Each structure stands twice: as structure tokens, then as C-alpha cells.
């Protein structure tokens, strides 16, 4: 596949140059498999083999793109796509800035994130994984839902100014298992992110589910009174809160447009808690990283916050062109966000539950349907879901109905941040909208924020 894609890029580049076009050429090839469970059955078993091709034509300050879902054999159709982009650009309107067409410094092939064994997991193996993960936990009323999504993702590109090409091949798997009570409507969940087949561990998933199911069956449900709580977030919740900073935090273009809660003058200042350190770290394979960006810049660990001090904005090439900034190697499909762990020796849910505590702790593993109430204030809202626990000061446990949290990120990651567990874990944040784009964020296993208000409390599951 690799040689064929690179050869096709080479041939198409030659075609474009012969025609006198200025174009960049981009392939995205995905081989995706998804087994979906609902009501303890396989509700959908699907696979997709899709080849996307995008040609972007440039004419000075003008730019236009043409995308196709096609197949590699149809070279004539691919050439027609290039012709179409070239024709479109004649009629486009000039930008107020000159878009950069990068010269790739060398041919870069990165297959280090690809594991043939994970990419070729079979239907039978996907089913066996789930059967192990929920063995003995399903009943007539406790039903399994979930997904096992895995596949291979290939990105390859070049342009008419570069003799070289870049090629990235990744394997990934995203697993979510939900056990829900059909009549009582409670639901618990556990997930796993894999970049190699050896990352798959259905027994670990089972242990987490079993622990939660036991408590949800035995401990009393409770509507929480409105008020302030010390809240421990699980990795899914923390990853969602961190990930949203991609849009309303450290993105330079969004800041310039007034859609960020961080300001230019805050670079170098203490903005968040000294406990908060966040890095874009493409050396961490669990994040499905890009080690070069699409302009050929070598990506190295890029500090975003160091002990709460904001270190700087990230700039993609296009936003750097528009706003006169220096690109920072962030012309990529996703970053590799890694939040540092802390000092707290609480590495598992069992340890969190067993921990001595002076106040009640509300454990929120998952935030459902997070949305941005106001980007320039960094205010977000979401509801708890999937396995929340009220860990009472007296050592007992109650099962809280879902609650709503509406807070600014500066409150959550600011002075109220109490502690972080020392252990960090990858949480898979891949979305299956559009093209496959495996993504994960590394976060502390637990993160505790004191004195956070809940603004709504459900009276049932």
C-alpha cells in the first residue's frame, strides 16, 4: 500500500507540474472495522475501506480544494480532481495574506505507530474480547452496549514545490463497554485505547466494570442536594476538559478571533494551578502522534502550561500566515496532549474508594454532552454519566443521580485544583465523524477539584 500511494502521489505531482499547476496533494486511506453492541447483542458489524484524495490548488493569494472518495486505480479520476481544483482557483477570491506552500525538507515515512497485529484483529477476536470483558456481568436486566473500533489509518501528502513526500501509517483501537440496567436505567462504563495489540486487556476492563456493577447493585441511589462538592474526575472527564482547550484555549487563531479564554498578555503568567502541567508531546505513542507536521516541521514536546504558567499559543501554518505569527509545528490533524500526573498515590478506583477522607467526595468519571457556554470566559457545561459515586466521609458509598456542572476552565484547573494522582493513563478521544482520526489524551488517573457547585441534580436515573 505504501509504495503504491507514494508512487501515485509522485505520478500526480508530475502531472500537475506538467500542467503548470501549484497544488498540494493529500491521500487519506482508512480501513475501519466496528463491532457495536446493544441490548447484549451485536447490533451492527461493519467495515469500510475508503480512499480520500484532496487536491488544493494555489494561485498567489488564491486557494481552492477538491476532495474525492475514490480508488487508487482510477488515476484519470484523480487527475480530473486536480484539474477541477486548478480550475476552481482561477475563480476564487484572493486572501489578504499569502498562503505558504511548504517545501518538505526530506521524505519522511513513519510507520512506527502501526501494529499489523492490531490492524488485522478479526471479527472473532473482537467478539472474544467483549465476551471476556463482560463475562458473568450480564443478566436479564443488566445489558451490554459498546463498541470495538479498530483499523488502519494512512495519511500521505506532497506538493508541486516539494520533491519529497510524507507518509504516516497508524493502527488504533477504541473500546467502550457499557453495562446498563434496563429497568432501573443506571449505566456504568469502562474503556480502553490501544495502539498495539498488546495494549488490549479485556480482563482489566472486566475488573473495572465488575467493581462498578457491584456498587451500583448494592449501594443506595441518591439525588444530590444542590451545593458545592469536592469532585474527583476520572480520565474520560479530565480528557474532555483538557481537549476542549484545543479550541478555546491555546489555539493562536482562535485567540486572535476572540474565542479563547487565554489572552496574549497571559503568556508567561501564572494562569492555572501550579499542579497543572500540559504538554503537546508527540513522543508518546499512546496519543497516535504526528512526529512531523504537514509542513515538514519536526515536532518535539511543546510546553503549553508548566506548573500553571501559560507558555504560549500554538500556530498552524495557515493561521500563522494570516496573523503574522511563527508556525509552531501544529499543522496536523490532532495534537498529542499529555497532562502530567501529581503526587497522590491513588492509582485505581478501588484505592480511591478505600482512601481515608474528611469530606464527601463526588466521583465523576465521565462528562456527557459538553458544550461551550462562552469561549472567551472558558465556561463549559456538561452532565455526569457512567458510574458516578458519592464517596462519603464515613466510608460508605451512595450512587448519585446525574448532576450538571457549569464552570470555567480557570475554575476547574485553577486554585480549586486539589490533587492529581501520580499515575497517568491514555483516554481515547477519537470521533468517528468523517475520516478516521485516532486520537488520545494522556491524563492523570484521577484529578480532584474542591468546592465545585453542581447547578442541577436529577431526581432519578
Amino acid at each position, binding site marked *: 500500500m505504501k509504495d503504491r500511494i507514494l508512487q501515485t502521489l509522485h505520478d500526480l505531482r508530475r502531472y500537475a507540474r506538467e500542467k503548470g499547476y501549484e497544488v498540494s496533494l493529500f491521500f487519506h486511506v482508512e480501513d*475501519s472495522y*466496528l463491532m*457495536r*453492541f446493544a*441490548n*447484549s*447483542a*451485536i447490533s*451492527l*458489524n*461493519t*467495515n469500510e475501506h*475508503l*480512499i480520500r484524495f484532496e487536491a488544493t490548488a494555489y494561485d498567489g493569494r488564491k*486557494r481552492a*480544494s*477538491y*476532495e*474525492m*472518495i475514490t*480508488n487508487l*486505480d482510477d488515476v484519470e479520476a484523480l487527475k480530473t*480532481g486536480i484539474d477541477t481544483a486548478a480550475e476552481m482557483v482561477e*475563480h476564487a*477570491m484572493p*486572501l*489578504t495574506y499569502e498562503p505558504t506552500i511548504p517545501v518538505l525538507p526530506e521524505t519522511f515515512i513513519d510507520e512506527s505507530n502501526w501494529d499489523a497485529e492490531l490492524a488485522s484483529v478479526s*471479527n*472473532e477476536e473482537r*467478539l472474544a474480547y467483549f465476551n471476556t470483558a463482560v463475562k458473568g456481568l450480564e443478566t436479564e436486566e443488566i*445489558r451490554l*452496549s459498546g*463498541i470495538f*473500533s479498530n483499523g488502519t489509518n494512512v495519511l500521505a501528502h506532497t506538493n508541486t514545490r516539494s520533491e519529497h513526500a510524507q507518509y504516516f501509517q497508524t493502527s488504533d483501537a477504541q473500546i*467502550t*463497554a*457499557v453495562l*446498563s440496567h434496563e429497568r432501573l*436505567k443506571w*449505566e456504568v462504563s469502562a474503556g480502553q485505547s490501544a495502539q498495539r495489540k498488546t495494549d488490549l486487556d479485556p480482563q482489566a476492563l472486566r475488573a473495572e466494570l465488575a467493581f462498578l456493577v457491584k456498587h451500583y447493585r448494592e449501594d443506595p441511589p441518591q439525588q444530590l442536594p444542590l451545593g458545592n462538592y469536592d469532585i474527583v474526575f476520572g480520565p474520560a472527564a479530565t480528557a474532555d476538559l483538557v481537549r476542549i482547550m484545543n479550541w478555546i484555549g491555546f489555539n493562536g487563531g482562535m485567540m486572535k*478571533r*476572540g*474565542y479563547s479564554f487565554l489572552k496574549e498578555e497571559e503568556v508567561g503568567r501564572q494562569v492555572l494551578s501550579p499542579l497543572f502541567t500540559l504538554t503537546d508531546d508527540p513522543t508518546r505513542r499512546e496519543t497516535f502522534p504526528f512526529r512531523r507536521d504537514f509542513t515538514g516541521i519536526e515536532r518535539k514536546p511543546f510546553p503549553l502550561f508548566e506548573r500553571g504558567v501559560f507558555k504560549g499559543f500554538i500556530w498552524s501554518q495557515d493561521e500563522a500566515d*494570516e496573523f503574522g505569527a511563527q508556525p509552531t509545528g501544529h499543522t496536523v490533524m490532532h495534537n498529542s496532549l499529555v497532562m502530567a500526573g501529581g503526587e497522590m498515590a491513588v492509582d485505581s478506583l478501588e484505592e480511591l474508594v478505600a482512601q481515608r477522607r474528611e469530606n464527601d467526595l463526588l466521583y465523576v468519571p465521565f462528562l*456527557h*454532552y459538553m458544550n461551550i*457556554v*462562552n469561549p*472567551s470566559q472558558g465556561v463549559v*457545561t*456538561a*452532565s455526569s454519566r457512567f458510574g458516578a459515586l458519592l464517596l462519603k466521609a464515613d466510608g460508605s458509598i451512595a450512587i448519585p443521580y446525574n448532576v*450538571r456542572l*457549569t464552570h470555567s476552565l480557570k475554575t476547574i484547573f485553577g486554585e480549586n485544583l486539589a490533587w492529581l494522582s501520580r499515575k497517568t493513563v491514555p483516554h481515547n478521544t477519537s*470521533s*468517528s465523524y*468523517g475520516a478516521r482520526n485516532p486520537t488520545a489524551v494522556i491524563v492523570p488517573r484521577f484529578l480532584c477539584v474542591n468546592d465545585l457547585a453542581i*447547578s*442541577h441534580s*436529577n431526581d432519578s436515573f
Partner: protein
Amino acid sequence: MREQLRREIERLKSLGATYVDARWYPFEEQNYLMMWNGNLKVTDASRESGVGVRVLYRGAWGFSASSDLSNLRALFDKAFDNARIAAERVTFPVRLAEKDALQASFESPCRIDPFEVPLEEKVAFLKAMDEKLNQPGVEQRTGDLNFIRKQIVFLDSEGSEIEKRITEVFARLRVSGRDEDGVSHVRTFTLGRRGETRGWESMDMEYFAEQAERIVREMNQVRTAEPCPKDDRAVILLPGIMYLQTHETIGHALELDRILGYELAYAGGSFVRLEDFGTLRYGSEKLTVRADATLPNSPGSFGYDDDGVPAQNNLLIDKGILVGAITGRQMVEEANARARRRIFEGSSGANRATAFYRVPIERMTNINIDPGTDGTLDDIVRNTERGIVLDGERSWSIGSNREQFHFAVEIGWLVEDGQISRVVKNATYKGDTLKFWNSLSAVGDESTWEVKFVDNCGKGQPNQVMQLGHGVPVCRFDNVRIGE
């Protein structure tokens, strides 16, 4: 191609498949243009084609899709293999509700094909709008146009063959600016239904210019306004937010696959239970809601769904009582069996896929609220002692069973003693779904009723983005918490 597809469908039937269908997209084209502060940031066109195959075997679904049509036999075999393994874990064997075998076609109403309009003309339109939006107080201004054109050929093992040609036009203008504290505020205009067709003729320069002027004026009013108070009062929702309230807390809550637990791994469930149909008081007596896929000229009207079932107009809520759901062939059979009574007489024709490479699932059509008898917007305001008029979605977040919600809106106008008193900024409201709909105290007449288009409804795994519509009047709800 059709003959090949028929042969493959028959072959899988002979191998033991209970049901097979194929959706062949000869083409789906999209043209998207986006201008931001005078920069034509996106000039994008796309084209895709391919086939998606769905196979039912021993009560389980298998699906496979490919853009490479050189080996259809392998594609059908893969779908069949996927169904065979799925059949190893079945709890409720899939059965499909009866339907007629149809030879039919559908074409959405379009007078001027937007794909025949020169790119220069589209760019000139955006440039003209950008100039209208470029006013004092405006820091960010965007205009975007999204045109979609597709041909879908559906064939199934029950003898149906349906061809659809659909053209969609979506357009949006948006401005934002900051207040004295540096907090950004936004105001948006989104094109809804106008007239009997939706092609390039929808791009009425004069109408858009009026809307551009309005959103600039209102955004500047918000920028300099006082914050929204935090209290309980009547909220009067204009169609620009009423459609989203309907979408999130009626539409999604009444998708039958959600009710049956098929979305629990991701999007969530529904507070609605099977025993609620026919008895649950969902809203006040003023609330009548229908799923109307026959509404002329809307993205939620598509002729035939991807089960091959004709579009229908069905009641969902009748004078406040829950009576119907958004359904496809599979879910109605399962729901009736699980409820041990016949709740649904058949599919309501709402099973749709967003692309050839996605499997059909229950999707909203046009989820509409009937106009009421409480007069015009002015009448409703006049009859409100203490309230707030709200418009424009800014953020929305809904509980996993659609049981509660929080919305932030673009603009609010306080109402005191039957009159609009002033604009407020950072307006929000929240509530519990059933309590909220049961507090519905006024429904505007036809003069307030608008059809809003939705181009980005997300659902399912793998995710699918669907287009649909909502016809909604102005509505008033009592004792709603605002400003949090």
C-alpha cells in the same frame, strides 16, 4: 450497475440471507465556501461515489461499504461475513415490519441548480454579505454556503427499486464582537425554508442583506447590554431557539432506537419508556407535535427512507399526550414485541443513512409543532407579566436520557408588564424536559411559525451527520430558571 447489484442481492439470498439491500450513490457532490473577515478561507468541492450493502442473517445485521466498485462480489461477501459473526451474539433476532415493494423515485424541489451557478457568482454573494457585515462593533464576520447534490439508488431483496435526487442549500451569516470586559458575543442568521423550492434561488441578496443588518444591530445591542438576571420567569422562545429545544428534547428523545437502548454506548438513551406511549403527559394541552416527512421543501422530506418506506406525516404528541415515535422497520417490531402490545402499526419511514458508507438508523424528519391560538409574538409578549424573549443558539447540553437541558442563547429581551424593556447579554435557561414542556402556556399562531433547517444533526457510531427540518411557532414557558 443495477443489474449487478440485483444479481448480488439474489446470490446472498440464495446463501441464506433473510434480507439484503444495497444503496448505490452514483455521486454525492458538495460545494462549501466560507468567508471570514473578507478572506475566502474555504473554497472546497467534493465528489464521492460508492455502495453500501446491508445483510440480515439469522436475526443479525452485517454491513460493508466501499468506494472501489471493481469487486462487488467481495463487498457483498464481506457484508454477509459480518452478519454471520454478528449472528453469534443475538438477544432479539431482528425482524422487519411489513412494507410494500416499490418502484419509485423522488426529487427534491430545486429551481436553479446551485452546482450550475458559476463560482464567481457565489464568491460575489459572499463578498457582498461580508461588506454588509463589516460594521462598527463587529470584530469577526463569517458567511458560509454549503450546497449538496446526490443521487441514491436503493435496491432490496423484497423487490424495491427507488431512485432519489436531492439538492440541499444551507447558508449562514455570523458576527461577533466583544463587550467592555473583553467577553465575546455572537449573532447568527441561518437560512430556513423560503418558498416552494431550495436551489440557488434561495440566495435572495435583498433578504440576506436585511438579515445581515439585523444581526449586526442586535449583536451590538448585546455587546452593550446588562447581564441576564438570574431568576425564574416566563421564557418566550423565538423559532431561532425553539427549533433546537424541539430537536433536543422531543426529537432525539423520541427516536425509537434510543428508547430501546441502541444508543446507550454513546449518544445516550431516553427517559421515555414503551409503557409511556398513549399515556404519558409530555407537555401541556397546547403541545401537538408531528414528524412530517411530507412537508414540502425541507431537508427532512426525502420521499422514501433507506428502508424503502414512503415518507409520512405522523403524530408524536397529541394535545400533550405521547402517541408516536420516530421509527424504522426493525425497531417497531422489537418495540411491539417487548411491550407485548401493538404500539406501532408499522415503520414511520425515518430510517436514514448519511452516506453510502454508513448504515441507516432512526433519524428525525421534520419534527414540527403545530401553530397555536395564542396570537402573534406581540400578543404573547403583551400577555406576559414578567419574562424574557430568547433567540439564537449559543450552546446546548442535554442529559444522557434527554431528561434535562441547559441552553445558552445569543440574545435576550426582558419583558416587564407586557412590554419589551431591554436587551440582556449572556442569557441562558435550563430545565427538566417534562416539567418544561408541561409549563408551555402559549403557542403562537401561523404568523410566528417558521421552518428551520438543520444541517449538522449528529448521531450514531460511526457518527452520522444528517440534514432535517423543524417547523415551529413562538412558544412561552412559565417559571423557567434563567441566567445560570
